[in-house]
């Protein structure tokens, strides 16, 4: 890809100094402005938050084995699903790929030394951690029971849980998102290496650019909404209070103005990762580069005008329902375009099945199902029946876990050698990918069925005829948990004992593979100059593993 440093054949004498060992001590991490270290610091925090959210999910699934609740009281169950939702959405999925892989890779992929505002980047991490701390305080002091959606008047006037503390945590974490998005947009606009034109950018960058736009345009709205909710709760009077003419649906409008695009904050970066993985492991140029790139932007823009499909049964006007329905159908098209282009990329490729590719193929399958079931919910008449049931739960888990999380894991496995300089045992990684795929489908496919049967979500106790499917789902969840635990073990193992990876273990294209692994603090020994398009595999020399 670059001419200045891309000489992967006779590896130049590898310097022993890299961003990991250039300085030592806790202070060298906590005060670092290196985007790579900040990415790793995010990785540590969100992995911790993922474990918290995962524990909550496990307890929920255990409880649902029996219709009357196998484990906990309804009150506790409500806190569990709220904790699961809030942590997974605001403290794991939203920052997952952008803050870890995005932070690590954006400057390297565009050939820059760092992001545009490194200190701001570090500050974003501290803001995020502060948000996490407030969330943890809220959980430790009993947990909130409002669901991640915080609908008033329940959350503002009726709940007896520490809503304000949790809201504050989300509010603060939101500013971290805003500043990260701002940093990325400026970085991608202003920091590209010579020769790195917009249409030579890797699609991962396009995806993160689109994501950053949503961060900037959407997050402030959830911030003000949550802020107003907090004020209403503190002062017992506020603008969503029906007693003084407030409209609870207004909260839902403002909430979903952010929270629907937030779904694309989670899935767009994953789509970017998949574009990288599919091309690297089939050694093909992406099919329809500009269609994939612009579909990311189209998704980001259209995602802002579809939020009303969350409100088809809430008493929103019929006419608004029709408008939002047609707009929701439109957002399906760019996603479909992506799936078809990825599939076409495989045509006549040279496909290998290392672990990251398994995740990528798993992603395409699960995202296809997740996306198509979205049509059921964009269609007004079926949504009336399915809204608020387990069908919705299954649909968005296919997108957020089957899609976003698979992409995240695939990306982590793909760039792990670059991040740590070491390989993990590929066979274990393949096993884990297969277990995640099987466990995931076992967990969530039954939920489509139980949803159409009419089981509402967020029920601590339920009707006995739904029990069989719930047991299936819980059984699948335990398989899924194993699938998540395995990578945690071998990835940590590999950091110390894994064999050295070399610059480019996958024979992949892209500036990040031209620098040493792990990269030096300034990313490149010589600032790169870009002379060719992304994914130019047809002109690659044979990889050197």
């Amino acid at each position, binding site marked *: 890809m670059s001419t200045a440093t891309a000489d992967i054949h006779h590896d130049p004498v590898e310097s022993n100094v890299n961003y990991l060992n250039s300085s030592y001590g806790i202070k060298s991490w906590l005060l670092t402005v290196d985007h790579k270290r900040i990415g790793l610091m995010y990785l540590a925090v969100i992995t911790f938050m993922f474990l918290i959210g995962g524990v909550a999910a496990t307890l929920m699934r255990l409880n649902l084995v029996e219709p009357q609740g196998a484990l906990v009281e309804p009150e506790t169950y409500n806190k569990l699903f709220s904790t699961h939702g809030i942590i997974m959405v605001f403290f794991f999925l939203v920052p997952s790929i952008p803050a870890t892989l995005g932070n690590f890779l954006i400057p390297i992929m565009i050939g820059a030394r760092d992001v545009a505002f490194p200190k701001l980047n570090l500050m974003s991490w501290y803001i995020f951690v502060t948000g996490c701390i407030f969330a943890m305080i809220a959980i430790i002091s009993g947990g909130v029971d409002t669901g991640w959606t915080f609908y008033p008047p329940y959350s503002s006037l009726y709940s007896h849980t520490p809503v304000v503390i949790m809201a504050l945590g989300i509010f603060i974490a939101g500013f971290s998102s805003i500043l990260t998005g701002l940093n990325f947009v400026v970085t991608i606009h202003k*920091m590209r290496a010579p020769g790195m034109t917009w249409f030579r950018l890797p699609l991962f960058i396009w995806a993160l650019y689109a994501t950053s736009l949503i961060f900037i345009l959407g997050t402030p709205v959830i911030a003000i909404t949550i802020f107003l909710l907090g004020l209403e709760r503190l002062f017992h009077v506020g603008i969503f209070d029906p007693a*003084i003419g407030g409209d609870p649906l207004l909260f839902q409008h403002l909430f979903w103005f952010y929270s629907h695009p937030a779904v694309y904050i989670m899935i767009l970066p994953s789509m970017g990762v998949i574009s990288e993985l599919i091309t690297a492991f089939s050694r093909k140029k992406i099919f329809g580069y500009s269609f994939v790139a612009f579909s990311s932007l189209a998704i980001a823009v259209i995602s802002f005008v579809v939020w009303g499909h969350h409100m088809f049964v809430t008493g929103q006007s019929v006419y608004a329902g029709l408008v939002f329905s047609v707009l929701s159908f439109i957002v399906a098209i760019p996603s479909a375009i992506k799936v078809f282009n990825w599939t076409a990329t495989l045509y006549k490729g040279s496909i290998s099945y290392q672990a990251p590719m398994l995740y990528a193929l798993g992603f395409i399958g699960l995202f296809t199902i997740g996306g198509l079931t979205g049509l059921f919910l964009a269609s007004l008449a079926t949504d009336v029946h399915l809204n608020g049931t387990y069908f919705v739960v299954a649909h968005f888990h296919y997108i957020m876990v089957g899609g976003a999380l698979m992409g995240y894991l695939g990306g982590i496995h793909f760039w792990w050698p670059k991040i740590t300089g070491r390989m993990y045992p590929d066979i274990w990684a393949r096993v884990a990918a297969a277990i995640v795929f099987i466990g995931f489908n076992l967990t969530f496919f039954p939920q489509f069925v139980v949803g159409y049967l009419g089981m509402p979500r967020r029920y601590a106790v339920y009707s006995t005829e739904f029990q069989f499917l719930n047991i299936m789902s819980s059984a699948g969840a335990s398989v899924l948990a194993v699938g998540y635990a395995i990578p945690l073990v071998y990835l940590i193992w590999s950091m110390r004992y894994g064999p050295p990876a070399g610059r480019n273990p996958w024979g992949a294209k892209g500036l990040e593979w031209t620098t040493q692994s792990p990269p030096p603090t300034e990313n490149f020994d010589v600032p790169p100059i870009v002379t060719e398009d992304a994914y130019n595999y047809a002109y690659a020399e044979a990889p050197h593993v």
Partner: protein
Amino acid sequence: MSEMAAHDAHAAHPPGFAHQFEDAGQQKDAGTLGMWAFLVTEILFFGGMFTSYIIYRSLHLPGFIIGSHLLLVKFGATNTAVLICSSLTMALAIRSAQTGKSKSTIIWWLVLTMILGAAFLALKFTFEWHADYVEHTVPGAFFGFENRPEWGPNAPYVQMFMCFYFFMTGLHALHMVVGLGILTVLVIMTARGKFSSEYYTPLEISGLYWHFVDIVWIFLFPLLYLIGGRYPGS
């Protein structure tokens, strides 16, 4: 908010150049674009409140007119004028740096801007909010609609209007306070000779922030004080 400006204020030591950039032009462009992107988030942050205001106003118009008439136009108009003056002085402070005027000129304009900003807040807090408190028009448990039979059934919506008044002007005042903090930093930096006609990006992007806060007030003034009319019988 202040983070952006404060960050750049810190990052930009003379020659004001940070290592990740290629040249000073790139750095300045990055800073300006960053600030504008931040102001877009601010537009949407306040936008959430403006959207709510528009919707409720269309639903509860009579109550909102009564509420609007509780506010005194003279304070609102004076404060608008004060803020416009402060925007001018801010623009002139930047211009002085741009054209290479002396440190003391820049500081003089900055301090004048701060004085005007402080005057705005003083007027807001002492004459307006305090009076509201005395007259029980602050929403909440002490909201005095029992004393105002003329509001009749609109009383809840008057309270809704006052919620908007306090949340919106409160958030605006908070931004003013942050702005004063930024200006203080700028005064110190100017005094230490950090700026020149070659390098004044922190001044410039802080100015953007200050003008933005002014724009918010330009909309708040008619929306809160004037709308519904002040003519007899309105």
